[in-house]
């Protein structure tokens, strides 16, 4: 029921442009892998290469141990038994929900039963006679998912399935999707530009940029231990601060003696890594420049004395800080990622302040 997907040095070109640059990736059976990266990073092209809508110019694609694309082999998409959910759903507008779902199984004897089963799985049993334009955005996406799942594919590919939905709806559909895919027991590859989405629902996140995969890891690992400065900057918020250049600033921020990794290396500081120093605690002097208030928390842009870039500081609860307020900030104790020359990864430990 569920397949392993193995990509080996897959390259996709459009004319002279390389969209996917020798990507190798293995997707374990029953797992949900998210390909995440900015627009034009090649994630959709990679997905379409797995589906068979793009023919790789080099490398091979293997699904369930069978080579479907290589120098010598080419299996047409209709013969791959791979389900696909498109951006905006791509429901056939001239067919009802049930007809859409039945499309992929209509030659099977159990077509009707299977259609009913999948519609119940996504909770659309009552809307089977509606046309796509009579459905809400979320219902359309669930119908598209049902259609892709009906032929019991070993692998489901999802291309930005939530792109057209508003944020409240996204939250709900994400949870639904996770449950439905788990119940169906298929392997799934999801493409998204929304890192929040990738972190929330994927078992494994593959971060892409410029046609290459930068890191493959579980969501906490990608967030907490990014493989490179580039990944750190792509996933979540935060700022890279050059070490060394700023003298003993890092020591002031940490509030303790620290072995500065020196010029050419960068420390990555997320908004939640900073805290306002309690009275008596050590820290660096800063001034709040502006504040974005979100209700449950707030993000402040701060200027730290002696630092030429701005940092972000997350505070929770009610905000009594207005722009211009002078504060003192410190780094929370944890292991910080430090990058030398962008890629080489070191670690820097900030300990609990003694006597605080």
């Amino acid at each position, binding site marked *: 029921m569920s397949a392993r997907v193995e990509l080996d040095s897959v390259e996709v070109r459009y004319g002279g442009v390389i969209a996917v640059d020798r990507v190798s990736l293995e997707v374990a059976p029953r797992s949900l892998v998210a390909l995440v990266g900015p*627009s034009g990073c090649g994630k*959709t092209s990679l997905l379409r290469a797995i*589906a*068979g809508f793009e023919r790789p110019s080099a490398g091979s694609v293997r699904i369930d141990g069978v080579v479907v694309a290589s120098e010598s082999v080419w299996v047409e998409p209709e013969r791959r038994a791979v389900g696909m959910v498109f951006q905006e759903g791509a429901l056939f507008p001239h067919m009802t929900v049930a007809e859409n779902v039945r*499309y992929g199984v209509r030659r099977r004897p159990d077509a009707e039963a299977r259609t009913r089963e999948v519609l119940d799985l996504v909770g659309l049993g009552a809307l089977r006679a509606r046309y796509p334009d009579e459905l809400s955005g979320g219902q359309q996406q669930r119908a598209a998912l049902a259609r892709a799942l009906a032929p019991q594919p070993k692998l489901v590919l999802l291309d*930005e399935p939530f792109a057209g939905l508003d944020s409240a709806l996204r939250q709900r559909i994400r949870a639904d999707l996770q449950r439905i895919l788990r119940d169906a027991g298929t392997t799934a590859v999801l493409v998204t530009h929304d890192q*929040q989405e990738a972190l929330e629902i994927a078992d494994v996140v593959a971060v892409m940029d410029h046609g290459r995969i930068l890191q493959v890891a579980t969501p906490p690992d990608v967030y907490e231990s990014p493989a490179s400065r580039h990944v750190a900057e792509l996933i979540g918020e935060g700022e*890279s601060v050059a070490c060394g250049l700023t003298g003993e600033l890092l020591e002031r921020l940490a509030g303790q003696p620290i072995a500065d990794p020196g010029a050419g290396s960068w420390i990555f500081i997320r908004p939640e890594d900073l805290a306002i120093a309690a009275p008596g605690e050590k820290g660096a002097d800063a001034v709040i420049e502006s504040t974005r208030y979100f209700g449950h928390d707030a993000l402040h842009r701060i200027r730290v004395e002696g630092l030429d870039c701005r940092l972000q500081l997350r505070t929770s609860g009610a905000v009594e800080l207005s722009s211009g307020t002078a504060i003192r900030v410190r780094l929370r104790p944890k292991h910080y990622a430090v990058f030398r020359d962008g890629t080489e990864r070191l670690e820097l430990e900030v300990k609990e302040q003694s006597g605080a």
Partner: protein
Amino acid sequence: MTTGAEASTVAPSRRGRRAPLTYVLPSVAAAAAVVVPLIYVFVRALEGGARGWAAAVFSPLSAELLLNTLLLVAGVLPLTLVLALPTAWLVARTDLPGRRVWGVLAALPLVFPSYLAAFTLVAFLGPRGLLQGWLAATLGDRSLGEIAYGYSGALIALGFFTYPYVYLLAVAALRKSDPALEESARSLGAGAWRRFADVIVPQLVPSMRAGGLLVVLYTLSDFGVVSIVRYNTYTLGIYNAYRGLFDRTVAAALATVLIVLTLAFLALEVRLGRRSRPTRTRPSRPPAPLPLGRRWTPIALAWLTGLCAVGVGIPAGTIAWWAVRAFRADGIATWTAAAASGSLGTSLAAALIAVAFATPLALWAARHPSPLSRWIERIAFAGYALPGLVVALALVFFVTRALGFLYQTLALLIAGYVIRFLPEAVAAMRSSVAALSPSFEDAARSLGERPAGILRTITIPLLRPGLLAGGGLVFLTAMKELPATLILRPTGFDTLATRIWTAVSELFYADAAVPSMLLVMLSAIPMYVLVIRPALAGGRS
């Protein structure tokens, strides 16, 4: 540093990917069928040497034709604007009683092909016409009959029967205009006249340009009116040279001038277009109708009554009056039926073939935009911009030299219709093709469907509205086509259009009336469904 609010990724367009040959080959073939004969007109015209060509083109006859043609354009264009714009405004923006019905009535002159307009004008107003007969009997006056012929006749017939092109576009523009624009002008202190000049007129400019171009092209290409009212323009001159002279080089030479003249007007329109700025806004609500009040309502109603009396009442009444007399004649049913089946058969064939070529052309242009596909599409549109008479002559010149076995066959006539009206099918299919996202076909493939099955279950059902509209338009216009039919038809073959024209040329009005009535009845419903209703509704959706 990253932000969560990143623009959503766009699915890779098929730009840069090679278009399938199933799109390219039919499109290139269609473009070749348009352009090769046209080039051949120039080859044929220069066959007698540059001196022979110059002798034909710079002759006194040619100068007279040019002057007459330009005078006609100079008269018809302003007349159509004067008729169309106030009417469009009354229908779209005022509380005129019955404005829905008036809206349709004002577009109905489109139902009458120009030669029917000329025929009914002559049969009503002419020296042997209905009104003249009555005037002569009661007042003994015969002078009025003259206005049905010559310049005045051509001006009235073309003006009153082509203004709907401007009118329909103007109604759509006025309905689409955002009332917030006028309200903004008002809040900035602009009075009624300032608002009209500064807000409404600029919104009408694009429709005046587009509609005006259609009127100019129609006037340049018209053969039916000028041949019936005997006003010597280029089309008539070319036809007479072709029919009357043994040497067809003169006809070819005159045709080159008409081609250049048409291209000059097209280029002029493009230049004007560059200077104006599109005023496209998305209205939040329809504009509130302006109350006409007790003083202006009767004037508006009188205007519309007069317009519809000339554009609809006179032709419908005249045809009916003569048709009643004609039914008593013997054999009329037989030859009308023969002409009708000729019209239906050739038009239906043309519609089917045009749609078969338009589909790959529209798909290619929409899904694989490239300089080549854009040029092919543009070339395919040339057949529509150029006069039907010229397209037909080009085909005859080319075929008699290169493919002699096609000369005087129905196949050639149908090919002429396809070349001339293919752009109508392409244009009608554009919105359907745009709505047919490639991901529908990809989705069907991922569900295991083979290409042939996808065509049957997805592509054709989704393109159906465009296929029907495009095929319907080609059918409709081919049914009414006259000049190309006169040139291309096999000897002894008749359509309703050629029947009507022949009878009118011989002043047998009664013989023309029954086929006229049939033609109007056959084309009225498709014309309403395919042209008038969508155009009038266009502003509302």
